[in-house]
C-alpha cells in the first residue's frame, strides 16, 4: 500500500505545483498590467 499512496500523492503534488505555478504567473501578469497602467 505504501507505493500506491506514494504514487497518488506524487500525482497530486505534480498537478498542484503546476497549478500554483500558473496562478503565480497570472499574479505577475496582473502586477505588470497595473504598472503599465500607472506609467
Amino acid at each position, binding site marked *: 500500500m505504501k507505493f*500506491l499512496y*506514494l504514487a497518488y500523492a*506524487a*500525482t497530486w503534488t505534480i498537478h498542484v505545483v*503546476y497549478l500554483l505555478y500558473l496562478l503565480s504567473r*497570472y499574479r505577475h501578469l496582473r502586477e505588470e498590467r497595473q504598472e*503599465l497602467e500607472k506609467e
Partner: protein
Amino acid sequence: MKRSSILFALVTLALLSYAFYQGMFVAPTEATMGDVQRIFYYHLPHAWVAFLLFFTNFLASIWYLIRRSERSDALALASAEVGVVFCSVVLVTGPLWARPVWGIWWTWDARLTSTLVLWLIYVSYLVLRRFVTGGQTQVLAAALAIFGFIDVPIVYLSIRYFRTQHPQPVIGGGEGSGLDPRMWIAVLWNLAGFLALAVLLVRLRYSLALAENALEEAHASRALAPQQAEGGPAADPALKLGDKSR
C-alpha cells in the same frame, strides 16, 4: 474568473473525487499484484491524456505553420506544457508501480525508454520557446513539435512490436488480454476526470499565453510611442513584433 470556468472546475473536482472512489474502493483487487495495481487507474489515463495533448500540439503547430495564427501558437504551447505535466506523472507513477511488482525501479526497455525520450522532446520544445529569442522561435518550435510527435506512435506500438519488461497491452491486446468490467469502469471515470483537468489547465495556460502576448505588445507600443511622435525608427514594423515565444 468567469462563472463557467468556476462551474467547470467544480465539475472536474467532482469527477476526480468519484474516480478516486471508483479506483480505490469499487474496483476489485487484482489477484497477483494486490492493491498496488490500483496505480493503474492513475498511470494509464495520464498516458492517454498526454498522448491526446501532444496530438493537439501537433495539429496546432501545423495550423500555425499554415496560418501564422497567434491563437494556434498559444494552443500549441499550452497543450505541450500540460502534456509534459501529464507525461511526468506517467514517468513517476510507473517506477512506483514497477518497484514492488518487478523488483526494479527502471529498465531500458522499448516502452520506458521511448516514453522518457517523448518527455525529453517536449521539455526541449518548452526550453526552446522559453529561452530562445528571435522572430523565428515559434516556427522552429512548430517544426520541432511536428517531428517530435513521431515518438507518440512509437511509444504506443513499442509493447506490440518489442519484447519489453512493461506488460503487453491489456486493452486492445487481442486474445487473452482484457480487464474486469469493474476495472474498466474505474479506468473510464479516471480518464474522464483527468481529461477534464487537462482541459481546465490548457484553458488556463492558453489564456495566460494570449494575455502575456497582449501585454508585450502594449509594452512595445508604449516604448515606441515617443519615437513615433518624433518620426524616429519606430516606423520599422519588425520592431513592433514582441517575442511571443513563451
